[in-house]
């Protein structure tokens, strides 16, 4: 019963998203332009640097293009379906969150299904970029690739979601979490552009075993681009990248447990 209801609401949610986006067409176009420039400048930066310094710890620009594109798809997937989680602190702050508690649905689901100007434009752009990068990098597209890439990308989106949820949960304690979000977003979005091996060991461990951003794109890319030594450096098997889906599920489960803990506290202590 609940699942049917949630499916209905989710369908409505997307319908309203599309309607709202069409309502604010010009706004949408401008934001799409920004998305394009955001990713464009990132890739352009990589190209410019690697044109002058052809190899970064054994990774060429072709390799880096694939690395970036893999991250881009996971990230765009998350933004399309879960960006609303980042608005939870605002809901808590302005009292809107109580409204969610007064409705007959799971609060996290409602937060995710909060209608707004959401459109899968970044995702489409990311998929196109990924196809181009796959061809350009010359990575070997076999059955493992075809089967695992969607799973890896989904796992990457879950890792992003996990981070998003953890920070939003912190809003139950600290009303303003923008500073926290900013630092972690930088950590994820900028550090994943480059091969993990360029960082100090401590940072590598942090990005692998604590906040598993390296599993979003680095380890999978290392596997498909045949760079096993990068995984070995951290005592991981060469195929560590194939574990990304599992890592994503585990990380988001941890985040969800933290969310439930925060929610219980919110209902016990108030605000």
């Amino acid at each position, binding site marked *: 019963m609940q699942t049917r209801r949630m499916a209905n609401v989710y369908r409505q949610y997307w319908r309203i998203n599309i309607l709202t986006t069409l309502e604010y067409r010009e706004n949408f176009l401008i934001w799409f332009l920004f998305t394009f420039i955001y990713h464009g400048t990132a890739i352009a930066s990589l190209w410019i640097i690697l044109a002058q310094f052809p190899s970064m710890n054994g990774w060429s620009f072709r390799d880096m293009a694939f690395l970036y594109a893999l991250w881009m798809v996971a990230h765009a997937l998350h933004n399309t379906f879960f960006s609303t989680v980042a608005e939870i602190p605002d809901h808590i702050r302005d009292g809107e969150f109580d409204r969610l508690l007064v409705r007959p649905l799971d609060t996290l689901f409602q937060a995710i299904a909060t209608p707004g100007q959401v459109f899968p434009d970044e995702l489409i752009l990311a998929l196109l970029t990924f196809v181009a990068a796959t061809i350009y990098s010359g990575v070997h597209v076999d059955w493992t690739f075809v089967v695992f890439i969607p799973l890896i990308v989904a796992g990457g989106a879950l890792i992003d979601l996990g981070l998003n949820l953890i920070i939003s949960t912190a809003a139950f304690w600290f009303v303003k979490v923008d500073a926290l979000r*900013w*630092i972690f977003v930088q950590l994820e979005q900028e550090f994943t552009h*480059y091969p993990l091996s360029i960082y100090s060991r401590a*940072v590598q461990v942090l990005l692998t075993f604590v906040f598993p951003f390296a599993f979003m794109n680095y380890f999978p890319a290392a596997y498909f681009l045949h760079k096993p030594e990068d995984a070995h450096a951290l005592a991981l098997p060469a195929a560590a990248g194939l574990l990304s889906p599992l890592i994503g599920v585990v990380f988001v489960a941890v985040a969800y447990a933290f969310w439930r803990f925060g929610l219980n506290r919110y209902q016990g202590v108030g605000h």
Partner: protein
Amino acid sequence: MTGTVPRRPRFRIQPYIEFAKKAMAREGTYRFDVFTTVGSFVVRLYLLRMVWTALYAHNAAPVDLSRHEIITYSAVALLMGIVMDIDQTRALHDKLHDGSIATDFMKPIIVPLYFFADGTGEVLFHAALLIPSILIALLIFNIIVPPPMVLAAFFVSFLLGYLVGFFLNFILNCTAFWTLEISAVQLIVTWLTDLLGGELIPLILFPAFLQQFIYALPFAAMFSTPLLIYVRQIPPARYLEVMGLQVAWIVVLGIVSTVMWRAGARRVVVQGG
């Protein structure tokens, strides 16, 4: 009193200093800004250091810039960013959004100067955040400090670059007179500035065919010029030339700002705010 021509009131600096102070106090209440700014600075500088280190380890240096010099470049670029990557004339956009701009026109102040004072106050607060960041850059990252004459030239160029940035920001916020949703446009300009201004990557590393074009843009006048002076890629002989270009941009953008402001103010008065 017929026949009396109203005289313009004598210009007083005092209210504008008060505006600047108010802006500083306002920024000060955002305590998390301190944590964000310094934390973000450290994280980004660390990243850039590791990137350049890895690049220099396996490749020949393509330009006459050592690894240490390029890390210094990055550090100074980030420090400049702390003071310059803020929406100085945000007050203009905010006031247009909530309509309070109308009352400002009724006050006996020169409105654009108010925004300049307000913005300067915000900047000065951020400048205070520079101090821990500079200490970290010097002590932990060991950045190079050039000889006094070069440093002085850097500061002059930096101030000129700041003014270029100020007018650019003012122009952007002026578009709010016509369309209120400007955050996307602002972000676009910010991102383009990051890349084309040489904030992240020194412009001398750009492919040759692009360099002519990029150096002519105002973004380069904001960041690249002072930065290249600092790392001594621009020799003293060329100081006048490059600073002259900065001044040229100040003049051009200043004129565009004035035109836009007048047009926008007229629109507000006509439409009633």
